[in-house]
């Protein structure tokens, strides 16, 4: 073996060693300071002073609570009521949903980084199952699940400090978890960064999820859960906001030309990842996986099951923008369709039809 081949073989290790030296130097020399190459890994040992308290405004999809104006941490009381009830899954199709707050997806929670959240989880006396909650924003046992098992008619309370900013999924984690999630037990919590989010004109709450029913897609009546389809990861429905037509017709999202739009989009799964796309738009900003880094000029963004994304775009022209999971059979055959209706003046510089089927241009 020649010297050059040895060097070639060990080159990656030499590079790693060099990186390690740099990293050590950064930590030793600068404490927790970052270098160009590395991000700091904070261990949160102190928290902000918490002043006062307020009761969180919670909203049903597609609505989002108002932006936070505070520049300090407070105690935020979140009251979440678990309700099991029959709900509409599609036209003429009903399903017994298990919900956080009476709707699917569950209530949207909005707090500020550093807030002390006191979460009150109540399970309606009419419920047939115990439930709990795992918020992905929580640093603690089971994301809160281990201490929040709540029997019908009962209440549990826990507190947590929202250490990390971002958009997070929450869900029920009571055994059997896949069933609780397949029945609609999920929602999102936004932890606004201390500096807040950029001002926009419209904010929407959209969550994709699957339903597994005994009957085929569109089969009428009250549908039973089909766990076999769940295990096989073959959903009957893949929908936005809890039903096949939640975001169409009267439910369509609305905006005006010139608006800056932000969609808080989550994927509850329970099984599938989402290739989220808006037909006829380009996402100007995508906060990938609901985190802090913005990617720009994105056509389709991948959302993990149990994950989120924040997409932002300006709307330049009137028309119907169509929200889809670009795993397109789902959109066409399983219900993953939504609409954003944009009204306002046309801008022919952005788009103009010149010659179309059956019509003569002027």
């Amino acid at each position, binding site marked *: 073996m020649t010297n050059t081949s040895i060097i070639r073989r060990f080159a990656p290790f030499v590079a790693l060693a060099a990186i390690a030296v740099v990293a050590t130097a950064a930590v030793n020399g600068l404490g927790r300071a970052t270098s160009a190459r590395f991000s700091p890994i904070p261990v949160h040992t102190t928290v902000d002073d918490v002043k006062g308290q307020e009761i969180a405004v919670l909203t049903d999809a597609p609505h989002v609570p108002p932006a936070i104006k505070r520049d300090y941490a407070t105690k935020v009381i979140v009251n979440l009521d678990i309700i099991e009830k029959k709900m509409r899954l599609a036209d003429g199709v009903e399903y017994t949903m298990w919900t956080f707050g009476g709707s699917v997806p569950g209530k949207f929670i909005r707090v500020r980084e550093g807030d002390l959240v006191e979460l009150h989880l109540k399970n309606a006396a009419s419920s047939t199952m115990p439930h709990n909650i795992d918020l992905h924003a929580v640093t603690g046992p*089971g994301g809160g699940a281990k201490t929040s098992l709540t029997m019908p008619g009962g209440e549990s309370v826990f507190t947590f400090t929202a250490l990390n900013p971002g958009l997070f999924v929450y869900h029920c*984690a009571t055994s059997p978890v896949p069933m609780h999630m397949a029945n609609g037990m999920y929602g999102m919590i936004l932890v606004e960064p201390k500096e807040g989010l950029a001002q926009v004109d419209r904010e929407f709450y959209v969550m994709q999820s699957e339903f597994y029913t005994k009957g085929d897609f569109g089969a009428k009546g009250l549908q039973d859960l089909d766990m076999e389809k769940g295990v096989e990861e073959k959903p009957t429905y893949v929908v936005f906001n809890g039903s096949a037509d939640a975001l169409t017709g009267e439910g369509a999202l609305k905006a005006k030309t010139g608006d800056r739009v932000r969609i808080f989009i989550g994927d509850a799964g329970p099984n599938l990842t989402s290739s989220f796309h808006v037909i006829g738009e380009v996402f100007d900003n995508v906060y990938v996986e609901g985190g802090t880094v913005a990617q720009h000029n994105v056509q389709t963004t991948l959302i993990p099951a149990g994950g989120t994304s924040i997409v932002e775009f300006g709307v330049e022209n009137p028309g119907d923008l169509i929200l889809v999971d670009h795993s397109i059979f789902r959109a066409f055959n399983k219900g993953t369709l939504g609409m954003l209706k944009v009204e306002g003046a046309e801008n022919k510089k952005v788009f103009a039809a010149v010659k179309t089927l059956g019509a003569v241009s002027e």
Partner: protein
Amino acid sequence: MYFAAKLAFVLSGMAVIPQGSYSPLYATKGAERVAVRGFALDRAPVTRGEFLEFVRRNPEWRKSAVKRNAADNGYLADWAGDLAAGNASDLRTPVTGVSRNAALAYCSAKGKRLPTSNEWEYAAAASETTRDAARDRNFISRLVGFYRNRASGRSQAVGKSAPNVYGVRDMHELVWELTADPMHAGHSGRAHDMSCAGAAMGALDPSNYAAFMRYAVRSGLNDRTTMKTLGFRCAGSTGS
């Protein structure tokens, strides 16, 4: 003596469950089957009418008198008053809103006891045609349907469903049923955490969603807990 006990239970209308074994959700000390001795079991859940008779004779178990360390405030919540258990059709439905303490007192007054979780699971593994349907996908799927539909509307009269091979009815159809022990805690030598996906760890059949639902309910019960969908039936020891 054992024969006499068995005969008495049979004469009182109970079903005799022969000894055998069943496959629990979690292995017990490495064993995939749990042996269960023979016992007697009520053929149907205790009804509101039967429980009404009990509280008539035992005033300390009336809803206005029950001690808070015996049952939580959901005790007999659907009853309009101490002896107002509903109309004739209500009286034929399973009694719910009862705690383990109350169920134990009822069974004890009848010379019976609550079934252990092992006994209950063993008897409940039987379908209409076989003693052990625990791995039968269609059976499990039916049970999940029964459990999920408990939320919708009022309970039905007991004794309407088809009996299982032991002649026992409504083990799954109507209400969750109390057992003498919580089972989930230390059943296999360690507590199974029913609060997250970790519940699948150590499960002999992770796709037995019906069993996960039952175990999750049991994991949340203490001796005072009541639920609108939780009732019970009594058992008796036959000694064989």
